[in-house]
Structure formats: structure tokens, C-alpha cells
């Protein structure tokens, strides 16, 4: 049975499989592929352009076909199927039993390069990674114009297949780290990788963490900086950002775009972000500690006015704070879910509930509203979505400890957090480092 017929039988249930015979002079070649991935009319005219009928007299047909793309005559059948699934066009010359896969004119299935969605940049480049692996790697190459940039692409999965690209600068990366990374990846190629959780399993990292092993970024310039600092940047097909491995403490407050400012402002901005991080963590706990356990720390005037504003609130400070924090979390989640046309409504309603109404109804105190606003604002100063999620969780630890032990609990919580960050490791690289990761 010919290859073409065999493939046709394999794809008999796929409506989008197309097999066309093209006559070129005396010869016939068969082209096949998935029409959902390939723009067929364009591709066929491309092939006709590539093969001039006049030339056929001088050359052997087989040679002409092989010149079109990668020769895969010797491949096993499954490999050919994979090629088609990946959106390649197979060209088969039956007479010489030659089979070639070539890059066709593709259907446009991914968006063009646009501005980043989860990160905002006001002082740097505004192109963002998107879902297409080619685009992402291309962007990275464009930003990292270095000789020793190396890329390794792996195909994961047995039924659902996906590609992962690992990139690094040979001269900058720690060889021991690179070796463990590559070994981890190569030993688990059979696993499926569709999302970051899958990928964590592939790397063999522990998945029950409150801080991430990899820093995600949409910005090519951040990825470039990470490469320069000796970190690995990974792309997963269909995941619209780069994974920077390992993630480091500096990712909390450093952004590559800061370097476009004068150094003084860079330092000031970073200090501001660190201050914001601390405020987010401490503010709710401090409120509870000062209101219910250690009011003596406050000045008398302040204590008196807080007591006044909490006058008819029926439950303890910790319940009050939890209540409002949860409403806030719900609001933040709801705004992500809703289409942008309804979003403002929720914001407005939420604003009213979290604002004056809750105070007038004597459900919470005035001061708590201010504390809440401070938390919301300052939690946005941290760099990276994943980091801001960690902060959202950490503040509850401090909140509970503060409710039990007051300011002492707050301090203990901070010690625990410090030690958690200090003991956290990715592939034996400690988390608590500035830009350039070094082994222990």
C-alpha cells in the first residue's frame, strides 16, 4: 500500500484531512495535510512556483521533491502522522517512494504580537510573548542577540503532544544547574505538558509551595535579562509567557524596565516596592493586633478614636477583618471573570459595599476601610502576578498569628516567612538571592 493511501486510511475520520494530486509534466505528486492548519490554495501555488516544469526534463523528479523540504522517506508511519498533526505538509512522490515534509503557508491561528496583558510597562518595550512558540522564540532571539544563546526543543506527551523549548546562555548559566534541568526534562518526556502544574511535575519539583519555582514574564526584555544573569528561560507551546527558572527573591521587586530610569529612581522605586510588600503583609495583622491585643502601643488619641469608630461593631476585630478581606478577594476574582463591559458595575457595587455602606451599617470600623484600601493599593506594587498571589496568602498567616499573640504574633509570622523564603530552593539554588543564581 502506498504511503498516501495508508495516511488517508489513518485520517479517515478527520474531515479536515486533504489529499491532492498535483500533475507536474508527466509526474504526479500527492500533497496532504490538515486544512485547518494549512492554507491549501496558497500552499499549492507555492509548490507550483517552487517546481518549474521545464526543470523536470533536466532533473530527476525525486531530487526535485527532496529539495522541497525534509526528507522523511525512511521515517516510521507514526512519525509521519505526527508531522501532519503538527501542521506540516507532506509531499509524496509515489514512483520513487519519496516522502518530504515541508513548511506550508499556515492558517493564522495565533494573535499577532501585542502589548502585555498582565504586566504594564511604561518605560520599556511593549511587545509581549503570546501563544505561539515560534513567535516567542523569535522575540527572544531578537532581544538576545548573543552567540552563545542555545535552544533545545523537546516534544512531550504520548497522545496529546506539546513542545517545550529550553533556552539559556551557555556562558552565563551554572553548568550543574543546566545539567540537572536537562536531565529532569529528558527523563520525563512521556508526560503530558499542558499547563504549569504539569510542567512542575516534569521538572520533579515539589508542587505544594506558597512561592513559585519559576517566575513568569510576558516581557521579552525580562526574559533576556534572566538569560544574561544565568537563568534558564522556558517556553511551553500555547502558554503565553516565558518561564524563568529559578525564581529568585529579587523578582519580587526588580523589573527590567527599571533600568531605563536613572539609577537613583531605580533604587527608590525598588525600595518603594519592598515597602509596599511589607505593608501588604503587615497592615491587616497590625490592625488586629493593635485593636484587640496591644492597644497600649498606640497613642492615646489614636486608640480613643479607633475605639469610637468600632463602637457598635458586634464581633471581634479578627472576624471583622476576615469578613472584609474575603469580600475583597471575591471582588478581585469577580473582576477577572467578568467581561469587561460588566466589570465596572461590579467595581462600583463593590466600592459601595466596601466603602461607606459597611461602615454606616456598623459592620466594620472606619479605620479598617482605610487599612483595606492600603492593602489593596500596596499589594499591586509587587512585580509579577504569581508573587502577588503569594502575598495574598501570606497576609492571612500574619493575620491569624496577630489575633492570637498580638504584635508578638506579627513578628513571629514575619520570622516564619523569612525562614520560609530563606529555606526555599529550586534545583538546589536558594530562592533568597539577588539577580544571579548561585548554588549553595
Amino acid at each position, binding site marked *: 500500500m502506498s504511503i498516501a493511501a495508508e495516511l488517508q486510511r489513518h485520517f479517515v475520520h478527520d474531515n479536515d484531512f486533504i489529499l491532492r494530486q498535483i500533475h507536474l509534466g508527466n509526474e504526479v505528486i500527492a500533497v496532504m495535510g490538515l486544512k485547518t492548519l494549512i492554507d491549501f490554495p496558497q500552499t499549492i501555488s507555492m509548490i507550483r512556483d517552487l517546481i518549474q516544469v521545464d526543470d523536470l526534463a533536466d532533473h530527476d523528479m525525486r531530487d526535485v521533491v527532496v529539495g522541497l523540504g525534509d526528507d522523511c522517506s525512511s521515517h516510521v508511519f507514526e512519525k509521519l502522522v505526527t508531522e501532519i498533526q503538527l501542521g506540516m505538509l507532506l509531499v509524496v512522490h509515489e514512483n520513487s517512494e519519496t516522502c518530504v515534509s515541508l513548511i506550508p503557508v499556515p492558517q493564522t491561528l495565533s494573535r499577532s504580537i501585542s502589548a502585555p496583558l498582565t504586566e504594564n510597562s511604561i518605560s520599556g518595550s511593549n511587545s509581549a510573548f503570546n501563544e505561539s512558540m515560534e513567535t516567542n522564540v523569535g522575540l527572544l532571539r531578537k532581544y538576545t542577540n548573543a552567540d552563545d544563546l542555545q535552544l533545545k526543543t523537546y516534544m512531550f506527551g504520548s497522545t496529546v503532544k506539546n513542545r517545550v523549548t529550553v533556552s539559556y546562555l551557555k556562558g552565563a548559566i551554572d553548568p550543574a544547574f543546566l545539567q540537572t534541568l536537562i536531565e529532569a526534562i529528558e527523563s520525563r518526556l512521556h508526560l503530558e505538558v499542558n499547563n504549569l502544574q504539569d510542567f512542575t511535575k516534569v521538572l520533579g519539583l515539589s508542587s505544594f509551595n506558597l512561592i513559585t519555582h519559576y517566575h513568569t514574564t510576558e516581557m521579552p526584555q525580562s526574559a533576556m535579562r534572566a538569560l544574561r544573569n544565568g537563568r534558564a528561560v522556558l517556553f511551553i507551546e500555547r502558554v503565553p509567557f516565558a518561564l524563568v527558572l529559578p525564581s529568585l527573591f529579587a523578582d519580587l521587586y526588580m523589573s527590567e524596565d527599571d533600568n531605563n530610569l536613572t539609577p537613583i529612581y531605580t533604587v527608590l522605586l525598588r525600595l518603594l516596592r519592598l515597602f509596599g510588600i511589607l505593608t501588604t503583609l503587615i497592615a491587616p495583622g497590625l490592625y488586629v493586633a493593635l485593636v484587640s491585643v496591644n492597644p497600649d502601643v498606640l*497613642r492615646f488619641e489614636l486608640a480613643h478614636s479607633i475605639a469610637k469608630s468600632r463602637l457598635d461593631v458586634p464581633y471581634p476585630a479578627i472576624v471583622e477583618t476576615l469578613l472584609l478581606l474575603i469580600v475583597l478577594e471575591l471582588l478581585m476574582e469577580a473582576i477577572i471573570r467578568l467581561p469587561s463591559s460588566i466589570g465596572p458595575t461590579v467595581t462600583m457595587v463593590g466600592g459601595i459595599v466596601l466603602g461607606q455602606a459597611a461602615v454606616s451599617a456598623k459592620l466594620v470600623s472606619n479605620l479598617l476601610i482605610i487599612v483595606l484600601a492600603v492593602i489593596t493599593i500596596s499589594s499591586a506594587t509587587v512585580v509579577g502576578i504569581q508573587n502577588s498571589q503569594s502575598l495574598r496568602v501570606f497576609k492571612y498567616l500574619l493575620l491569624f498569628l496577630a489575633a492570637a499573640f498580638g504584635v508578638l504574633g506579627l513578628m513571629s509570622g514575619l520570622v516564619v516567612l523569612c525562614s520560609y523564603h530563606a529555606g526555599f530552593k529550586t534545583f538546589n539554588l536558594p530562592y533568597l538571592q539577588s539577580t544571579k543564581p548561585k548554588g549553595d
Partner: protein
Amino acid sequence: MLKNLQVPIVFIITHMGLIFFLYPTDLIASSKETQWVPIFTGFLFQLAIMAVYLKGIRLFGNENIIHVLMKKSRWLAWATLLPVLLHLGIIAVLTVRIYAEIISIIFLSNTPLWILMCLLITIPTYIVMHGGVRGLMRTGLLLSLLFLISILFVLAYAFQNIDPRYALPLLPDDPKDFSFFVHPSYYKCLFAFSGCFLFLGFVPPYVAYKPKTVFIASLLLLPLFLMAVYIPILTLGEETARQLEFPFIFTIDTIEIDWLMFDRVTMFLVLSLLAFIMLFISLVFWLLTNIFRHSIKDLKPKILVPLVSVLTFGVCLFIPDLETTEEFLQWETILLGYVSIVTPLVVLFAGRHHFKQMKREIK
């Protein structure tokens, strides 16, 4: 991050945790005038044992001292390590117990003591189990970044009410001024000088440091030793300071800062110092488990560390009051003296021997 500075920083902040509570009380109790004489004596004692110890440690290079000692002479190793183990165990118990009481006196008077002791033990246990000694050192770095600022702020304000004339007479002219040598509480306050220098010998296989930086760090401690004693004396006078359980903390309580939204700045100081004490306790726990593992039986840290902390907690529960604790501390000074004199000397001699042996082997 700042790898070479981790050990000196931990050295400084763990001392800070020890300096400001019991040390001024004991020192003021031991001498009536010219307190700088006993302070300097203690400080020079610290410098001397540190110099010997660091010199010895350097000879070992990056090798584990316990292993080398064990190989050399089991008898000598036990004579050195067993008192150290005992000393560390007692320190762990006493520190937890005393500081739980301090927390109870200063801010949580209604919370039962065992909960506070639990807190003071669980967190250090977590620090040791989560990150090991490397994580511990990094934790120290983060803690110093977080808390040193508030301590320095409060210390700067501590000079608010001083009357320098209380320091007079400056020069000792009476043989009585040296009577602190025979006063038992003077030996108790040596705890602040030599309470935690031991760890320097056991970290080199895990965390590298330059001995010089640690030496400089211990010089930086001198102003703190002086301040801890002289700020209460200059503010209150020696006769008044003698009456108080924690003179330094009381003096901080007298500070008035008009523009701050907080009334009691003491809280910031005490909290920061307690954070450092937690680090100190975790350091002691680590030392205990480390010495145990390399000399007696190599149990997994996952089992050994909780075991040590549960044991500490159990012993702590049996101490009835602060007075008994202080009494224990007084007895502990004998062990402390033995450990802080014998260990550096043994390390130095063993180090010399080891160094020569290594040289011979290389040849």
C-alpha cells in the same frame, strides 16, 4: 546573597538578642561604680577566646571539626563535646524559659506560659527543619534587614533622658571597684559575651566565612555592650537601676517621642530582639542536632530536631519560676566557663596537629 557576611551578621544579631535583657541586670548587680571595667574585662575575655577559637578553626580549613576530633582521640573528643552538648541543652531550656517569662511580663500577661514557650520552640524548630543551617543563616540576613532599622532607631532615641554625670567617677580608684570578680552574678553576665560563639566552629563545612569579618563583628558589639549597661545607669542612676528586673527595657519605656503614632517604642525594640532570640534558639537547636549526629548517632534531622524541641519543651515545663531559672543560670556559669575556655583551646591544639598532619601527607 551577601554570602560572606551571613555568619558575622548572625553573630551580631544573636548577641544583640542576649545583650539587652539579663546582661545589664547582672552587670549592674555585680559592680557599684565604673561599670566599664567589668564590661571591658568581659569583652576582652570574649576577644581572647574568639581569637584562639578562630585561629584553631582556620587550621581545620573546611573540615568538620567533630570528625577530626573523633578520629584523633575519642577521649579528648568526648571531654570537649559532651560538656558542649550539655551546655547547649541547658542554654536552650533556659533561654526559652526566660524569654517566655519576659514576653509575659512585657506584653502578654494573660497568655499561659506554655503557649509562649511553645511559640518560642516551634518557630526555631521550623527554621532548622525547613532550611538547615544554610537556610538559618539566610534567615538571619533577612531578619537583620527587617529588624535592625527599628532597633537602631530606638537605640538612637534611648539617649533622650541621660545625665552624663551619673557615669562619674570614671576612673577606678578603689580596690572595691574590682570586687566584681568575686560577685557571682558577674559570671552570669558572661553568658552575653560567650553565649553563642561556639557555632563558629561548626558551620565551616556548610557556610563559608572569613574569620576576620567575625572578629570585626565582635568589635562592633562593644558599643552595644556599653549601651546596654550605661543607658540605664545614665538615665536612672546606679542605685535606681539596681532595683529593676530589666533596667534597659524600663529605660526605653521612659522615652517620649511626640511625632510617632505609637506610644510605646519599647515594643519595637523588644519584638526585634525576640526575633533575634528565636534565631539564637534555632542556632542552638541546630548545634545540638549537628553535634549529636556527628558524634553519637546519625539520625535523620526530620526525627532528631523535633525530638530535641519536644525534650526542651518538656524540661521547660518543669521549671516553676523565674528565680529557679536564674539559679540554674548561676550553676550553668561553671559549665559555661569550662566550655568557653576548653573548647577553643582544644580546637586550637587539635587544629595545629591536624594542620601538620595534612602538610606531611601532602609532602
